[in-house]
């Protein structure tokens, strides 16, 4: 019996428990004296839920714990067998044989590459099935114990509803705690792996070095090619400069045109069309940038007389990224312009200013904090964007301000470092986490600043 089958069995039995509990409580209602429900405290289905939860919850909890501890128990049982004494003492060779024997016993693998494994397979099979059935028996025992206990507690005046509601409230709280756990998980894993990286490579070299050419075996104190300045510059150049040169004017002017000039029909059609730009997956943008925009940019550069234009140039990636960001800038500007009190606009128009003068001299200055907040969010989005730069920008670290040259970014290098083998002892893999931490911290502060600016500005007009 697999874990999935057991899960469905427990849930199915839980349904049976629900039906029994509800039937019992319906009996209370039917036999009640005085009034339609008599002294019965809770509706029958709450009794059903009480029984079902009391039976299923401990069983599921046990299954979860069992899943995590049973592999260790199985290994222990195998190791205590006499055959296991022949195993090599070397920890690494030992672990390789054990994991192979386990894989064969579980049917994931068919042939053994190590001679020792075959001998252990029957042992593993025995141990696995022993602990599996032990787990199944214990799960079912817990289920019936919980269900029976709950069933005996059902009485007409039993407060089933408040018990069930307490469980629901607990569930709600746990669900909202998952966000915190995820944030902590991200932070902890990034910090932990980065710590290990910085114990190999000095943080000073990482943050201030200008040579990015990561070596897989590092010597402390020497230059190991982990200077991330070219990556920081590449990220800023593509995400915060080229992309913003495209996105800010186009996004802002689109928002102004659609809110101030366009008729309602045009607005109704154009807004969703702009939204589609935000909905196109980034891998599609990346493909388009690499296939169509990059060659066009290179030809243009050659026409201008730039001879060393690369086919994976920074400009193509930046332009396409800018287009992707347009809807974000546009909708944030849209919101903040709409939030400017009408009295200010009407006042300006009444003084004889034209529409464009009103927009430029009254609406935009008043909406500026909101627009700036939107731009900060857009920058944060652009520097964390991965697929466009992976597909269209280059892999060579290059400290240059020439947009026709190839430039690499933080996200490109994370992908490049984690391609191939992901050995958690190699500084390559760990460097990816250090880059990830840099990215996480940067985007966190950008987002935080953006939200603060926008919030403050909203308060000013409320």
């Amino acid at each position, binding site marked *: 019996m697999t874990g999935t089958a057991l899960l469905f069995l427990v849930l199915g039995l839980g349904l049976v428990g629900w039906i029994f509990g509800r039937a019992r409580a319906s009996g209370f209602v039917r036999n009640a004296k005085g009034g339609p429900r008599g002294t019965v405290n809770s509706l029958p289905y709450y009794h059903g839920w009480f029984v079902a939860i009391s039976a299923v919850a401990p069983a599921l909890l046990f299954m979860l714990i069992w899943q995590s501890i049973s592999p260790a128990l199985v290994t222990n049982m195998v190791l205590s067998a006499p055959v296991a004494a022949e195993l090599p003492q070397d920890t690494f060779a030992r672990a390789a044989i054990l994991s192979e024997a386990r894989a064969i016993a579980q049917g994931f693998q068919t042939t053994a590459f190590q001679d020792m494994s075959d001998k252990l397979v029957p042992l593993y099979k025995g141990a696995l099935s022993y602990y599996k059935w032990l787990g199944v028996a214990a799960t079912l025992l817990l289920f019936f114990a919980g269900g029976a206990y709950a069933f005996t507690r059902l009485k007409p005046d039993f407060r089933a509803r408040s018990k069930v509601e307490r469980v629901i409230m607990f569930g709600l709280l746990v669900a909202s705690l998952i966000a915190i756990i995820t944030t902590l998980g991200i932070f902890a894993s990034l910090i932990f792996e980065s710590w290990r990286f910085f114990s190999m490579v000095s943080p000073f070299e990482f943050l201030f070095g200008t040579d990015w050419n990561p070596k897989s075996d590092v010597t402390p104190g020497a230059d190991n090619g982990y200077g991330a300045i070219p990556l920081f510059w590449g990220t800023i150049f593509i995400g915060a400069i080229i992309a913003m040169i495209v996105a800010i004017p186009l996004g802002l002017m689109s928002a102004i045109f659609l809110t101030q000039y366009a008729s309602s029909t045009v607005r109704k059609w154009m807004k969703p069309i702009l939204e589609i730009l935000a909905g196109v997956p980034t891998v*599609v*943008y990346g493909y388009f940038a690499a296939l169509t925009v990059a060659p066009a940019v290179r030809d243009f550069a050659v026409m201008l007389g730039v001879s060393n234009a690369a086919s994976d140039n920074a400009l193509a990636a930046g332009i396409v990224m800018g287009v992707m960001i347009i809807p974000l800038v546009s909708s944030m500007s849209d919101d903040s312009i709409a939030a400017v009190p009408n009295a200010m606009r009407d006042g300006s128009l009444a003084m004889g200013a034209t529409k464009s003068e009103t927009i430029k001299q009254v609406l935009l200055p008043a909406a500026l904090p909101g627009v700036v907040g939107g731009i900060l969010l857009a920058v944060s989005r652009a520097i964390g964007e991965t697929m466009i730069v992976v597909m269209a920008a280059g892999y060579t670290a290059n400290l240059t301000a020439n947009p026709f040259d190839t430039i690499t970014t933080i996200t490109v290098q994370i992908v490049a470092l984690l391609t191939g083998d992901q050995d958690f002892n190699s500084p390559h893999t760990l460097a990816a986490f250090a880059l990830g931490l840099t*990215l996480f911290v940067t985007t966190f502060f950008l987002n935080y600043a953006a939200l603060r600016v926008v919030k403050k500005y909203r308060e000013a007009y409320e």
Partner: protein
Amino acid sequence: MNSAVVDPTPTDWNGQIMQKRIAGRYAAERRFKAMGFMAVALSTLFLAFLLFTMLGQGLRGFQRTEIAVEFDFPVLTAGATAVSVTGPNADAALNSMDIPGLVELAVGQQYAGLGDSLLTSAAAANVREMLIDNPELVTSKQTLWLPADSRLDVAFKRKGEQAAEKTVAALSEKDALRTGFNWTFLTGADATDPSAVGIWAAFKGSLMTMAITLLLAFPIGVLAALYLEEYASKNRLTDIIEVSINNLAAVPSIIFGLLGLAVFLTMFGMPRSSALVGGLTLALMTMPVIVIAGRNAVKSVPPSIREAALGIGASPVQVVFHHVLPLALPGILTGTIIGMARALGETAPLLMIGMRAFIPAAPEGFTDAATALPVQIYLWSDEVNQGFVEKTSAAIIVLLIFLLGMNALAIYLRNRFETRW
């Protein structure tokens, strides 16, 4: 302003200077408006150009070039009968026929001197399927249309290598080429030969990943939204939860991939590149989106509904689950669909958890090695072979159709069920 001297003569609005000034201001106004129009037009043009390019290239990916090959089955198979390729021993009978050898022989006889690789690597498998579908074929001389090799395919559809162009010209003279619908593309899996690739495996991988994502992110997201909006008291913990959710919604997706790699793969030892890990990672990414959409939907349910329910004796939990949640559900669903559409197009986190491997078969279970549609697009885009260009675009068309469908559904739901209180 005691020193200011006020000119007593009124402004001459009809004077030449004033008229010029006003004309200038109106011109500036028109220029500004035109700039706004240009911005919208440019964005739209870019979108149109992108879609047009993908359609132009991708539609060819749904077609394949087929070559007529004549099989003299009675001679080639030395007397196999329709009965022998049906029934319980069909597999053995088909294997003993050595179909790849037959195909090579037939092509060699017919198109001698045109090079040896005219057909796709999957041609023998295609012949086998045809024989299984229609066993009568083996009793007579048949002309079968088999998919051409990728080089010829490219040369026939647009311009290819010179050698391939020559072969295509020679074949066209014999009337041995035609264009057919590429069913393999919809039903097959990844392959090294672009004329034999399909998206079904990647699509199934995406569906399975999405199933896990929805199963986890939707309930957790809705419950968290209800808690924060309806029950949470204003305290330190609630503040931290809110900051976490807002921050998670804006964290770059690649960071979630790093989390998946470090926690799900390395710490929990879950199977690499499986739909399960992909779904878990994307669920963490989608959950904040659902929470934010859910909170807005719950917030828009008017308090009078809650008060009425409380007034007739409902408990706080009953108020929320019997009244607030059903009324907020359309808004929550809209947000969920939009979040799921985002997750469906996401590539970077899946690359981090190893979904970039070459997977030549569709996954059978949630723990099998799988790939997803956007990852498949990325992998194909990296291929040097010219035949992959149109396949990549065709896969993009499929992905975009699904995303547009999901977004259209979200808009429909919003318009159909949204209540303005």
